[in-house]
């Protein structure tokens, strides 16, 4: 259509002072249609992948984030109790009607085998809830009214007003309690949110440590990456390519392989310790603890992430004309000043790109800390995996995961601001 418009001579195609195409439509509209058609074609190319990613990636992550606030268990399992609790004063153990409703809810739940999930859910909020609910639920079928006394006898938790406050507070379709827990806070008796006791604070410390370790790794990759990128950028192409292969080989080698090799090197009976012992530098009783701690994680991750720093640095340094340094020097700057004041500032985009990349990757790292990190070398991802697979507190895992995801997205946004959306590979 565009072609037909351009081939047309103006004389044949003027109507009411407007350009028209051969078939008589106004040119502007026609161009617009053509433009829209091309947009649709372009979009048609992208849409299969877009659809695929939305269905199998974006939606799953959205669903996972939804779990961090989703709270259907209590409201679905204890509807009568919640109804009966509307008149409760919120202070003392409630009266008979609440227990009658609770008994009925539990009897139905026991029938449908819904007590387990309910007990698990409430145990996140208060210790001993799991035992109180599962054990009491097994006896409710035999209870006769009045119920209150029998509940109080069945488990000591029923005498504690906290459990009723929790049921009332969490008896809603959405909850904030996973985020409260994920930020090391808790609900106080009056319903306000306060920090937990010092010895119960885990997650913020762990976030802090994850960021701190990532920062250390970032600095180390910079210190190690800068000299070799500089060297490569100033060598003749032939040698630089050879060295580049040495950077790319680790990059292309399986993560598990690299982690294995660090275990082989770092363990107490490993290559480094044995060499030191054989060389007489340390004696065999004082082998260094290089693994199952933070040292191990940092060493291995620095090695694994170093190429991510070197590659962008190198590509930036390649573009800096060597004449700048010479010019600075000929103008009287000494070597150091020339380097520090003229050269380094020009490499900042590379440092920024590599730095954000290394940082983003390392705060989400899971495998290497899990294998060589021991306890002190673990990161927030390991805690998410723990709640996913071992403690099975999926709501908390989702809350921690959402917090991690948002941190990463903010960093990525900053990365985009710094270097534009161009991610280069190799």
């Amino acid at each position, binding site marked *: 259509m565009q072609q037909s418009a351009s081939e047309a001579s103006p004389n044949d195609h003027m109507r009411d002072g407007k350009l028209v195409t051969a078939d008589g439509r106004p040119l502007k509209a026609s161009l617009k249609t053509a433009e829209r058609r091309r947009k649709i074609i372009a979009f048609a190319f992208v849409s299969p992948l877009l659809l695929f990613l939305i269905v199998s990636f974006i939606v799953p992550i959205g669903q996972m984030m939804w779990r961090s606030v989703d709270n259907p268990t209590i409201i679905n399992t204890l509807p009568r109790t919640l109804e009966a609790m509307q008149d409760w004063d919120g202070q003392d153990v409630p009266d008979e009607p609440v227990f009658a409703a609770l008994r009925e809810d539990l009897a139905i739940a026991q029938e*449908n*085998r*819904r*007590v*387990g*999930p309910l*007990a*698990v859910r409430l*145990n*996140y909020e208060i*210790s*001993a809830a*799991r*035992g*109180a609910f*599962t054990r009491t639920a097994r006896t409710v079928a035999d209870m006769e009214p009045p119920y209150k006394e029998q509940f109080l006898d069945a488990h000591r938790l029923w005498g504690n007003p906290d459990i009723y406050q929790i049921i009332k507070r969490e008896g809603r379709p959405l909850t904030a309690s996973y985020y409260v827990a994920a930020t090391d806070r808790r609900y106080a008796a009056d319903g306000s949110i306060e920090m937990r006791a010092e*010895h*119960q*604070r*885990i997650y913020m*410390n*762990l976030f802090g*440590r994850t960021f701190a370790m990532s920062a250390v790794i970032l600095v180390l990759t910079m210190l190690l990456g800068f000299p070799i990128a500089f060297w490569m950028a100033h060598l003749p192409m032939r040698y630089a390519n050879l060295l580049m292969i040495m950077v790319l080989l680790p990059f292309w080698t399986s993560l598990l392989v690299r982690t294995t090799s660090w275990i082989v090197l770092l*363990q*107490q*009976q490993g290559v480094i310790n044995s060499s030191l012992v054989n060389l007489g530098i340390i004696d065999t009783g004082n*082998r260094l*603890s290089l*693994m*199952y*701690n933070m040292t191990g994680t940092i060493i291995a991750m620095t090695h694994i992430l170093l190429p991510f720093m070197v590659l962008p640095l190198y590509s930036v340094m390649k573009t800096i004309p060597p004449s700048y340094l010479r010019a600075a020097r000929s103008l009287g700057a000494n070597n150091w000043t020339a380097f520090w004041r003229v050269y380094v500032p020009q490499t900042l985009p590379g440092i920024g790109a590599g730095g954000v990349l290394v940082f983003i990757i390392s705060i989400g790292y899971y495998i290497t800390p899990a294998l060589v990190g*021991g*306890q*002190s070398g*673990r990161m927030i991802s390991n*805690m998410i995996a*723990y709640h*996913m*697979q*071992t*403690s*099975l*507190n999926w709501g908390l895992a989702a809350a921690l995961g959402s917090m991690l995801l948002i941190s990463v997205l903010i960093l990525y946004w900053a990365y985009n601001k710094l270097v534009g959306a161009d991610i280069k590979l190799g």
Partner: protein
Amino acid sequence: MRNPKYKIMGVTAAVAMATGAYVVAQTPVSLTIVSWGGAYTESQVRAYHNPWMEENPHVSISNDDGSANALAGLRAQSQAGNISWDLVDMLPSDAQLACDEGIIMPIDHDEMLASAPDGTPASEDFLPGSLGECFIPQIVYSTVVAYNTEMFPEDNQPNSIDDFFNVEDFPGRRALQDRPGVNLEWALYADGVHPDDIYDVLETPEGQDRAFAKLDTIKDHLIFWTEGAQSPQLLADQEVAFSTGYNGRIFDASEVEGQPFEIIWDGQVVEWDGWVVPYGPNIDAVMDYLYWATDTQRLADQAKYISYGPARASSAPLVGDHADLGIDMNEHMPTNPDNYFSPILLDNDFWTDYGDELRERFANWMLQ
């Protein structure tokens, strides 16, 4: 009364065994059995799976060592309505949870399991307190402290939980499992609490503080393991001098692989482990297998390959020598009186109630 179906099954098996002929050709069944991996799965393969597959050529069994995350797996599978596991080896506390959630089958032990050879029904033959609503006990295992004998001079070898907590006289790193269960019990035991009173003390906030304070005294010497197979590995690599671990794994490493490990039976923490049945597609084949694999002789057979005690009283006299080494397995059983002098019985009810809170506190303690 036993289900006639299982009786017939038993007879058929007996006939098949006697004649060495397979009466009916059956449609092939493939069972996925989930267990703990390593030496433990190996013992089940040799005592149960292989003989069963030999007798029933239509059955093939594949092993999945997913027991450490079994509850998560069961939940996910039942949520999806796609159960790929046929039989799962798990701990009684997790089994009770799964049972309360209705994702595994309730078990009528007398109906579904074999009686003892003398006719004692299953519910009485299994050791007292071991049966669960959905749980079929298989073994008694214990968590113990073990050490590498090469890491200590010959005249100064440790032999008690006190020694484990004594870093002055017994230097070296120690490995604990990365969860509070068992560790807090030992901390109190080493702090002078009698095994029978441990859970009463641990129920109180002061008792919990006391346990953590005791652990603090060795904190700088600790590293942590997650999966059962790691503890013998850490000891073998001399990453640690002491490690807590499952007695069967330590046995396997020391007796079968010849590692210089010694078990400290003082304060061993005793627990059950056993089978649960998810609502999978092959329930009939699984029940046939279970009826046979949990009978008196089979449970005793497992002890030929790993040093865990059979969960049936009637199996105990049948425990003999190790299949490959020929050593008498009785002296390696946790329940042998020589070893069973100061046991701590793991209280699952306690851990059901306080587990979440203490796990959090322990996780935090480890990080600090």
